[in-house]
């Protein structure tokens, strides 16, 4: 497509009768890398996902000092689907989205990589990534060789409950069936998290399941919902309600629980008998980013164990960097032993990774999932 006075031909072509299939950009989505002349880097990340930026000894300030790169750090990712919707039109029109790095969850990362919207990383420029990524996050089907992505933080999906109000909830099966929990639990509104557990509950493998197994799992979800066992499908704010006692238990992300525990020690995180979902949020360089080299410098920097430890001490999610646990001993020994930040092999052996879906599958499953949770 030819850019014309700021308006591309694609933008002028109104969606009158349909939307064309996405075409790979003719130039491969590559923009001229101006990293060496413009020492800038523009990042989009989720809220509360970095140590205080204003702190002079913080990881970001240190990065800027060390490299001379000035970082514009936007906190504008609230939701994978929402962010996707926000950049979709520019991406499909082969226009820059004015960001050098975006951080999205696996399934969305996989989808964007599948749509050819992500630029490959230069392996030589991110040696720390290849040397230090923890084993459990290696070899993802959608990007086995870490060509396109680098995990920023990782996390576990399990169960949280309020020990003040109910006995331990040891399994997902219990969570969705125990009478004393009825009407006082929430499940996460992210399909991969919740359906992973339901697949487990119906005896399927979330990492490799058939359509029939999917249907079974979905039926089970429907039944639980129709029984009035659920309060809501939640994406945020659920731990506040758990702490207030509006909820007594819920499906939860590990990092949220650790942060909430500072305020309410009665909140407990459980690795359910069915296992845990292991996911990650991943740094990627989108098409037409103009500071690829700076972005790679950033990735490599955060894959230094001592930097990763500093970050993990703040955000409390699973640190994807090997060696950070040792570095953490110097910062906060108690955190170094926290298996929700540095999971041990026992724990990791009991995790799964949701089956990698192509775009059509993703859309089909998301659609069916949406039907159940919204009807």
């Amino acid at each position, binding site marked *: 497509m030819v850019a014309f006075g700021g308006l591309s031909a694609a933008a002028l072509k*109104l*969606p*009158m*009768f*349909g*939307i*064309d*299939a*996405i075409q790979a950009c003719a130039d491969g989505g590559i923009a001229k890398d101006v990293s060496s002349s413009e020492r800038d880097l523009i990042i989009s990340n989720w809220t509360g996902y970095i140590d205080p930026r204003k702190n002079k000894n913080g990881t970001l300030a240190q990065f800027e000092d060390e490299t001379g790169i000035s970082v514009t750090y936007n906190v504008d990712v609230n*939701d994978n*689907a*929402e962010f*996707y*919707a926000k950049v*979709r039109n520019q991406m*499909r029109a082969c226009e820059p989205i004015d960001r050098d790095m975006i951080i999205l969850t696996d399934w969305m990362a996989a989808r964007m990589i*599948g*749509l050819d919207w992500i630029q490959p990383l230069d392996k030589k420029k991110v040696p720390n990534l290849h040397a230090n990524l923890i084993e459990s996050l290696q070899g993802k089907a959608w990007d086995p060789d870490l060509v396109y992505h680098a995990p920023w933080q990782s996390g576990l999906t399990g169960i949280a409950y309020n020990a003040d109000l109910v006995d331990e909830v040891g399994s997902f099966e219990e969570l969705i069936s125990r009478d004393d929990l009825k*009407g*006082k639990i929430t499940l996460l509104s992210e*399909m991969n998290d919740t359906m992973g557990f339901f697949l487990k509950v119906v005896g399927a493998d979330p990492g490799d399941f058939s359509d029939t197994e999917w249907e079974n799992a979905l039926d089970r979800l429907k039944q639980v*919902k129709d029984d*009035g066992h*659920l*309060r*809501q*499908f939640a994406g945020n*704010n659920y731990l506040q*309600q758990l702490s*207030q*006692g*509006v909820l007594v238990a819920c499906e939860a992300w590990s990092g949220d629980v650790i942060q909430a525990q500072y305020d309410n020690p009665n909140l407990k995180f459980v690795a359910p008998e069915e296992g845990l979902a292991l996911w990650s949020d991943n740094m990627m360089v989108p098409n037409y980013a103009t500071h690829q080299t700076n972005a790679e410098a950033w990735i490599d920097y955060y894959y230094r164990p001592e930097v990763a430890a500093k970050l993990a001490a703040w955000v409390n999610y699973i640190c994807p960097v090997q060696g950070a646990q040792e570095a953490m001993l110097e910062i906060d020994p108690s955190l170094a032993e926290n298996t929700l930040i540095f999971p041990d092999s026992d724990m990791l052996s009991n995790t799964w990774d949701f089956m990698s879906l192509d*775009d*059509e599958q*993703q*859309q089909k499953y*998301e*659609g069916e*999932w*949406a*039907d159940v*949770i*919204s*009807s």
Partner: protein
Amino acid sequence: MADTDRRKGLTAYLLMAPAVLVLALFFVIPFYSLVAASLYEPGGSDKEGWEMTYHVGNYVDAVQDYWEPLWHAIAYSAAATLICLVLGYVLAYAIAFKSGRWKSLLLVLVIAPFFTSFLVRTLSWQLILADDGWIVDTFQFLHLLGDDGRLLGTHFAVVMGLAYNFLPFMVLPLFASIDKIDHRLIEASGDLYSNPVVGFFKVTWPLSLPGVVSGTLLTFIPAAGDYINAELLGSTETNVIGNVIQLQATDAGHPNTAAALSMILMVGILVMVLVYIRKAGTEELL
């Protein structure tokens, strides 16, 4: 002569141009694209694209699958509108006729909640209606609620949230309408043998009808499309059409379903509004 006439015509067109342009940009084009999207062949995807095949079946499927949230949206909104009307009328009447020099201050107080975010206001209702909150405790004490009864996550909570959030939309037009009523008309009705109650229904109420109509419309229409209250104060049993449209448009990636549902909601509301205005006998308002 002809020349000035022509110039006059030209001026009129020039003056209308911005309005036409804005309407075209912000209404006609999006509307056109919405209609087109609602007729996409199902089974498309972002990657493969969407083809407009006049697939009217989208509408049938949408209604079949989502009649319940659709019904919820209308019912909640209607209930909230009714509550707003009763509360808002009393409030607007008191401010217009009885507040004297406090009038402006009270009006500001009515709008005051708008100074905080919609989300924050609704979240605070989560606390107010919480299972161990004082309202639930009081209701349980009065045996209006069973011991394990609750408010949060019920139809009631959603309706109350809507009523709370949209009350100012009701009060302001009502106030404007009631405030305009000539006091002497109310005196005249008393002079002509109407006791205060009859006088209200024969004079004050009919004269405030323009405010009632615009207030109920301003409340009902946005409340029917609102999904924040249902999401924050409701449960999985209280989904409204807005929740579905949002989910279908983003996560589920079914623009056709989302568009069809939007069209159904829009046409549905339009039909209801027209019937309502006709019943209320206030066509001249439009």
